[in-house]
């Protein structure tokens, strides 16, 4: 699919080799759609890849290109510092700056656009300190702050973990709407099949540090979804009968 590859190079291309602990990372992929999801079990190297793209970890060898910028090229000894990459990483556990208000957290990258607080439903929290927020509120601020940083590529590490379904759906809608307007690609990490289908994003499936498959959710995770649905149906059946 040469056409896909051409479109893919508009976003991000990644080629990484790294050995860390028991993980031998050898991953190569290109984003062909604006939102891609790194999917795989714990320890498959998802978060490591995200950290390498953000510049927080340098691989033994590799190349990362966010068109038109080369973020990393070990052969050419190019390694852009994290603060110059334009790739804010919203970590799984919201790391809000505890000594700054929510507003100051949002302003950390030099101000935010007026629509951001409302879109993430945090306009009532702006004067609060992070310690006063609930888990869901902190997660929303965490995402809003990354969006407010005017990224060139947004990196999200399990951004919806621990959030209830309505909240998750609302956040996904806001992010998709923001993406439609800004055109900024998103690379997120998850091990949640339902989330992948909800996003409709391109799936990059990782296994033991390698890309096992890449494509649309139905192609890659169709069988997995069927299995989960069957399990769900089997679990619900008896309970429904017992309440009758």
């Amino acid at each position, binding site marked *: 699919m040469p056409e896909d590859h051409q479109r893919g190079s508009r976003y991000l291309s990644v080629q990484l080799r790294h050995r860390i602990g028991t993980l031998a990372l050898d991953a190569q992929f290109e984003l062909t759609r604006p939102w891609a999801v790194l999917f795989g079990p714990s320890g498959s190297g998802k978060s490591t890849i995200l950290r390498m793209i*953000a*510049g*927080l970890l340098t691989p033994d060898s590799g190349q990362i290109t966010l068109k038109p910028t080369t973020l990393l090229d070990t052969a050419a000894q190019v390694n852009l*510092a*994290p*603060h110059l*990459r*334009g*790739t*804010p*990483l919203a*970590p799984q*556990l919201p*790391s809000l*700056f*505890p*000594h700054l208000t929510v507003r100051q957290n949002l302003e*950390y*990258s*030099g101000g935010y656009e007026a629509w951001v607080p409302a879109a993430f439903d945090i306009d009532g929290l702006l004067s609060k300190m992070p*310690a006063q927020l609930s888990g869901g509120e902190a997660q929303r601020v965490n995402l809003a*702050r*990354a969006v407010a*940083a005017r990224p060139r590529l947004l*990196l999200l590490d399990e951004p919806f973990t621990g959030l209830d379904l309505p909240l998750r759906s609302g956040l996904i809608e806001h992010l998709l709407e923001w993406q439609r307007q800004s055109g900024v690609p998103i690379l997120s990490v998850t091990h949640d099949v339902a989330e992948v289908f909800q996003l409709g994003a391109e799936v990059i499936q990782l296994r033991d540090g390698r890309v096992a498959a890449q494509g649309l959710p139905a192609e890659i995770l169709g069988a997995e979804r069927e299995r989960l649905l069957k399990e769900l149906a089997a679990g619900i059946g008896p309970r429904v009968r017992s309440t009758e």
Partner: protein
Amino acid sequence: MDFQALWLTLRLALSTTLLLMLIALPLARWIASGNGPLRALTQTLVALPLVLPPTVLGYYLLVLLGPLTAPGRMLIRLLGHPLAFSFSGLVVGSVLYSLPFAVQPLIAGFRAVPVGLVETAATLGASPGRVFRSITLPLAKPSLITAAVLAFTHTVGEFGVVLMLGGNIPGATRTLSIALYDQVQDFNYAAANRTAALLLIFSVVALVPIYLRRSSDTRSVLA
């Protein structure tokens, strides 16, 4: 009460603390930012005054800053007078002697700042300098206060280095702890009592804010 000695002690402690913070902040930042033999060696040298008898440090400084060594001769030529037996000499000695008391709390404070916050700030576009100013320093503020208070109080109480390096010149190098020693030598216990009580009260008053602050921090974390 030897007000001249009191004034001199406060001046010495204040100058030493200010200088120490200027030196200790970048030094602690560098040590806390990584590992390796060079950092370990630097930390060892910084910690040396903790175990070295103050008189030994004072003796070496006396020799080093005097006319017997090349650096000493250069200093004498630059300043027009030897550093030993002068107020500036005392400041140099005090800075070295109190260095670990300023550097160690700062290293601990900088290392306690969660690395995730520093990394997040960097990916949000903050340069290392800005991350240090806007995240690391404010979060390590209690350690900064601890370092400054310890440097100040430790300088107020020092004796061996001051005696070796400064002698006992009223108005120039005679600090309160030296005055106390003199008062006891003269069997002037009434004056010695006042001087000792003043030093004791001063130390307690200086330390209370550190621990008050710590207990209120603990409460706010638990709340």
